């Protein structure tokens, strides 16, 4: 894609990633990074950096909406995030020293199992509620 088409596609995909981010409380990088590499032709590194810049205003917009609706505790969430940021810097440093390919597979299995458990819990709760 190139020119205007690309920018229209980027805005449209931004809406989709934003909805996922606001609803699921995720940054949206998992969606944005593959899109930027495949559709916009960015390198993996540039896509990851660009996605981080998108995630910040997205998370702020979603959090402001949640605060207005009285969902959760934004001040606590920010403190939690500061701890998370320290962990993330440690993780990025560790990533340079460890075999990332093997870790990704282990992590993919972990995430898949958690997903199955959540669906199972959700269905069970639904059955209980009738």
């Amino acid at each position, binding site marked *: 894609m190139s020119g205007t088409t690309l920018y229209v596609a*980027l805005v449209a995909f*931004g*809406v989709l990633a*934003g*909805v996922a*981010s*606001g*609803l*699921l*409380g*995720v*940054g949206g990088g*998992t969606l944005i990074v593959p899109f930027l590499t495949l559709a*916009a032709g960015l390198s993996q590194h540039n896509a*990851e*950096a*660009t996605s*981080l810049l*998108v995630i*910040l*205003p*997205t*998370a*702020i917009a*979603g*959090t402001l*909406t*949640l605060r207005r609706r009285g*969902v*959760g*505790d934004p001040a*606590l969430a*920010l*403190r*939690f*995030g500061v*701890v*998370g*940021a*320290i*962990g*993330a*810097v*440690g993780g990025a440093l*560790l*990533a340079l020293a460890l075999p990332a390919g093997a*870790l*990704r*597979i282990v*992590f993919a299995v972990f*995430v*898949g199992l*958690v*997903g199955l*458990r*959540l*669906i199972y*819990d*959700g269905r069970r*709760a639904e059955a209980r509620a009738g």
Partner: protein
Amino acid sequence: MRASAASAATSRARLGRFRIDRELVAIGVLGGLLSGLLGVGGGIVMVPLLVIWARYGQRDAHAASLGAIIPISIAGIATYGVAGHIDVRAAAALIVGSVVGARLGAGFLARIDERHLKMVFGVFLIGVAALMGIRG
């Protein structure tokens, strides 16, 4: 809405004695570590840990994760921004859409039935796992 307000009140009461709960510190460090290590967003790691380990309600876990992503992404931008890898024009186009989308999505989060939220997130995680499995 009433259920979510009640569960938010419960988590605040439990955390009232500490400025931040020990489980939250552990989950923050672990979530941040995994996210930095694997290049995935922290939310994919933090939401399940908050629900399964810290016994957060599903809706509160998603809200806490979204707020936590603000400082986490600032740290990320500071790291990458120095290296100058950001495609500013692509980012601007995505932001125009994603800020609108985030308001819509957060509105859904405030209203959605927690059981449905669990299932939607479960499907999302399995999709991410498949994607990571292929790429890994």
